[in-house]
């Protein structure tokens, strides 16, 4: 059950990254910071966070969702 809960957290993380990669909240904004539009900085930040999250995922959560049914897989082995 605990594992299931953490599955949902990861699904939520992936969904948030997907949802925020394009800065919808800054629609129409045109301020620039150090020569680049503010929305581009947002995007860069999200991509960096994505890379960190993905690397955490590969460490502690890889293999999630790969076995349809652990019992069945064991029987297969």
């Amino acid at each position, binding site marked *: 059950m605990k594992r299931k809960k953490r599955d949902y957290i990861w699904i939520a993380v992936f969904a948030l990254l997907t949802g925020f*990669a*394009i800065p919808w909240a800054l629609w129409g904004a*045109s301020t620039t910071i150090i020569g680049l*539009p503010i929305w581009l900085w947002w*995007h860069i930040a999200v*991509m960096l966070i*994505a890379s960190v999250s993905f690397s955490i995922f590969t460490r502690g959560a890889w293999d999630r969702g790969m076995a349809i049914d652990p019992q069945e897989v064991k029987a297969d082995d």
Partner: protein
Amino acid sequence: MIESTLVLQLGIIGAYLIVAMGIGIVAYRVTASTAEDYYLASRTLGTIVLLFTTFATLLSAFTFFGGPNLTYGSGPEWILVMGLMDGIIFAILWYVIGYRQWLIGQQHGYVTLGEMLGDRFGSKRLRAVIATVSIFWLFPYIMLQQMGAGEALVGLTNGAVPYWAGAALITVFIILYVAVSGLRGVAWTDTLQGLFMLGVIWIAVGWVLTSVGGVDTINRSMASSNPEFLSLGGGLYTPQWMIASAVTISFGVTMFPQINQRFFMANDAQVLKRSFALWPILVLLLFVPAFLLGSWAAGLGVSVPEGANVIPVLLGNYTPAWFAALVVAGAMAAMMSSSDSMLLSGSAYLTRDIYRPFVNPDASADREGWIARFGVAIFATAAFVASLFRPGTVITVGDTAFGGFAQMTLPVMIALYWGGTNRQGILVGISGAQLFYILHIFVPSTPIAGVNLFASTYWGWDFALYGMVLSAVFTVGVSLLTTTDTSENSQAFAVGTQAD
């Protein structure tokens, strides 16, 4: 003066292509003569090579020329679309589809997608359908590389080298290349190309910024020439268009034969993990500079001649001729290695999923190799002829191909995870969505009962998305309504968590 520049530019391009060819020949000499080695380098690719070979395969004319052309015309928001698409959604699919395929492939020794699904559903027909659909959509994408190469040389040499000559040059090179080298050669040159292009594009940014006097100068002139460029959205960039592009491209990419075969190639799970985490960074490093250059060119008032690409023209204006030639050479070589990967995978589909099961099951390995090479030559030549007619921009042609592949993604995903999928379900899912998609491309939009049928969008959303939904509904619906045949092997995809 002008003539000597031309000689210099062509010399650099020629030299680069010959070096790339040399690497292919070296790789060929270490290639064993088995199909698994020719097509998959015996599943031994390490992180850097796997990452770059997948990456470089994405580094096609679509990225180097199509992308900057788009940001030149419409503003830099394309960075966001491609970032979301390649850095996030594709990375997630890399795990969801790629890792699972790798696990299954490890257990059963599959080399192609068709082989994997054909075995699971006990259906040669399904295998042939997947191979045919894939080869069909590969065609416009190969064509796109030839268009890109032709346009690049027009831009670089100011029209001294005609469009057809550039397209022909790359066609000859890719045919030769695939003929002499297998996947190992392609993977090696991809890595070289990827690193080279990444370095060179940043040097280009530095060079342009130094010669115009900083990004503020560009922004000031952009504010008067294209004031809408700095604000997010507007023009082409509607939320619906951005989301639809990101979704169809990323889902489509996973079904590209050359990408999908990469899923079977990793040495161990560690390789897939590292690639997964590095993906968003690599995407940022490449797309931000490449696409900004396109928009900056607009801000700087660079005018691009009809039928040329913005990047070579921009570099021609702000960097020395040799550097511009080097970038174009690198981009052409990258396109060449993309095309090689595609053709190589296409030929794997042709020989393993169509020729062997249907035409000649007892063909010798030698004969299979010749069929593959012959197929590549005919295919590339036909794509070259089609590229001479230039049926659309690099972006439109690419988008059409991506959308076509995306119609297969959901049925495959469902089959990978849901044991209830059956043969009829996946067959109807794949062919039904293809039919829907192809009708929308070839039948002109017709108003029927107040709704425009066969339109390019419905309520602002791209028809490709509706096709994807349809493919999933068909696959699940038909699977539920029909009975599973006894020759289907629904246990084939049951893999465990211990596979690591």
